[in-house]
């Protein structure tokens, strides 16, 4: 209270430079490193065709298991494919999959949460119980069941994981929305006889949006790991496509023969990206926003 009275007011029209400065301060030094790394991965994914030095899916057995060289920066895998190009292209499927999961989860979870909190009563009870049931399935198990039904591949995995994540998002957003719903700024339009959908969209959505956003950032990391796990198990992205999780799996056999590069580099990419997203989400709003406790 004291601070808000005396500190210089926050100006919504502050210059871009000022806003950017505030963002950087909010992120902290490590946060800036994490953000830079994510930008790097994003660029790799977007510009993969330009950056990749070779076709990621074609190789020659004659060139299998080569070490790093000027021709192959990270070396080659057991099929003789260029590892650098596969990492670059792999960023694409890993990021697209995770992004799709987070998008679906956020929209679905937020929507359910808002409906539950606005309608209350039996609607809330029904939605909450269904989500509780979903909660009790381990994410991967749910995904495996869905894959068994719809077949292997990236998209069945994405849909399965998105569904599995909905309860996490919905639960948190519901509690935030419940709190906001009782506030006078929501009560007042309600008393005017303004329709529920209007109030929800005009008043509730902007006030839960920050939680949705930080939740999404943290979930992104989990989504990448779970997708990689599914690829590793052979349920997700299929050979010969490039995908980090898949590369960890195919590199597994090479490990036994003493060729560490494929698994290690792909695994490292996963770990670093997930860590970067996790840290960023933490700085932006905290783990609570994602509803995760583990």
């Amino acid at each position, binding site marked *: *209270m*004291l*601070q808000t*009275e*005396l*500190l*210089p007011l*926050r100006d919504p029209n502050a210059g871009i430079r000022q806003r950017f400065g*505030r963002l950087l*301060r*909010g992120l902290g030094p490590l946060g800036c490193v994490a953000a830079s790394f994510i930008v790097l991965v994003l660029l790799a994914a977007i510009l993969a065709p330009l950056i990749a030095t070779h076709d990621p899916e074609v190789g020659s057995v004659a060139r299998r298991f080569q070490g790093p060289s000027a021709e192959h920066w990270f070396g080659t895998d057991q099929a003789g494919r260029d590892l650098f190009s596969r990492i670059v292209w792999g960023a694409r499927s890993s990021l697209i999959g995770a992004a799709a999961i987070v998008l679906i989860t956020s929209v679905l979870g937020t929507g359910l949460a808002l409906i539950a909190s606005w309608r209350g009563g039996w609607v809330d009870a029904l939605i909450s119980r269904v989500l509780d049931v979903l909660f009790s399935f381990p994410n991967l198990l749910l995904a495996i069941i869905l894959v068994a039904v719809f077949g292997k591949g990236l998209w069945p995995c994405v849909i399965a994981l998105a569904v599995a994540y909905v309860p996490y998002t919905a639960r948190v957003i519901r509690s935030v929305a419940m709190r906001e719903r009782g506030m006078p700024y929501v009560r007042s339009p309600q008393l005017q006889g303004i329709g529920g959908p209007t109030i929800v969209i005009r008043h509730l959505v902007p006030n839960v949006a920050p939680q949705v956003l930080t939740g999404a950032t943290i979930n992104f990391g989990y989504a990448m790991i779970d997708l990689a796990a599914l690829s590793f198990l052979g349920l997700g992205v299929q050979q010969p496509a490039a995908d980090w999780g898949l590369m960890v799996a195919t590199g597994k056999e090479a490990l036994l023969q003493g060729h560490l590069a494929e698994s290690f580099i792909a695994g490292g990419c996963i770990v670093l990206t997930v860590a970067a997203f996790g840290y960023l989400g933490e700085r932006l709003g905290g783990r609570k926003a994602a509803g995760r406790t583990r």
Partner: protein
Amino acid sequence: MSVEIHGLTLDLSSSGGTARILRGISLDVADGESLGLVGESGSGKSMTLRCLLGIEPAGATVGGSIRVNGRDVRTLPDSELRRFRATEVAMIAQNPHAALNPVLPVRRYLAEGLVDAQGLEPGDASERATALLGEVGIADVERVLAAYPHQLSGGMLQRVVIAGALAGNPGLLLADEPTTALDVTTQAEVAAILSEERRDRGMSMIFVTHDLDLAAAVCDRLAVMRNGEIVETGTAAQLRDRPEHPYTRALMAARPLLYGKEGPRASAPPHDASR
């Protein structure tokens, strides 16, 4: 216990820049005297108390000196500062619910202070706790001792907090809006207890409040604060009859009167309204 604050300044820096919260506060409290620090929100009255205890918020830069019984508490070594906080001053805050651990009964709250800070035997501590609660006007002591904070009303809890504050026989009591969260009848009760106990024990007190009349009732002298400065100091009668600073006059005039003719109410006092 006497307090001399001289030229106290506090700057608070945050991502939005640096703001000067206290602009050179100087005040004295004589041994056994009670001083009311009166001001509106943002005047810096609570922050002054926090500086006295050395618990200013992160990012604060403090200047000036605060002497308690002649020692500058700002330069005390950590161990002595801890002892100062534990045994010589006691703080009573606005919200008693925040002062007590919700999962422990009242008995444990009081025993903690008596056993850990005072070094009493548990048996003696229990006896002392009973006596203290009696002093702050609690009739059914046993029930209150066994109760958890959520089972008691705000007024009852604030009495428990006062009992806990008295437990250490402090020479200086710091009260930060101790009755603001209470109902008006409870406020009168708690204010009475606080001011009687203080007088009987010869403690000094700094009483922070936004309510001039309440401060006048429990304090010997008042200091009116605004925007991090003390604008005027004097007895309640002086401030009421011969207020010198325009802000004191505005504050006096703004009070809604319970009795007497409705005078011309303050229109716009020099600050606020449109900021």
